[in-house]
């Protein structure tokens, strides 16, 4: 694929809230929901949801990313779950 670090913001933005598999240097593979891609370094922030018990975050450094493959499209529920993890309570948009 085209050099990951050289992609444009709108290309990275498409990955938000998608479940992906990131292949990194040394054949390391990571799977998770994309919360964001740092537009400066190309680093990918992945969230793994293990039900109610635990949630973990893995960041793959942009310079080590070799390939990113979309596994599943996220829905509104995933988007809300991810936002709730990172955004302070006061800045969340409330509905109803």
């Amino acid at each position, binding site marked *: 694929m085209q050099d990951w670090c050289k992609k444009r913001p*709108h290309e990275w933005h498409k990955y938000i809230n998608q479940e992906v598999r990131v292949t990194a*240097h040394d054949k*390391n593979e990571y799977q998770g929901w994309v919360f964001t891609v*740092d537009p400066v370094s190309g680093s990918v922030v992945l969230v793994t949801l293990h039900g109610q018990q635990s*949630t*973990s975050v*893995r960041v*793959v450094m942009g310079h*080590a990313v070799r390939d990113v493959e979309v596994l599943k499209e996220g829905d509104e529920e995933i988007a809300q779950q991810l936002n709730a993890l990172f955004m302070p309570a006061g800045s969340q948009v409330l509905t109803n």
Partner: protein
Amino acid sequence: TGTDAVHVEEEQRLRTELRERFLRSLILMSNKEVYFSMYERVQVQAKFGASDIDILNFQVSDLQTPLGVQKEAILRCQDIISYSFDL
């Protein structure tokens, strides 16, 4: 031209949103135990303190390495493949 200006503005808006989200992920990491996968398959863990503004270096405490514990350390981001922490 006008359409180019709109295009640039939209790219900037997306860039800002991506960056804000990334900075929030850094805030969430402060004072947490973070696991780092480095080159040459070295795994270390440490308590994350701060990053410099360019995010080229991480300041960490109690860095546990295969050779022992470093009370305070700076990790160069270019030496890291990935890092993870629990919420």
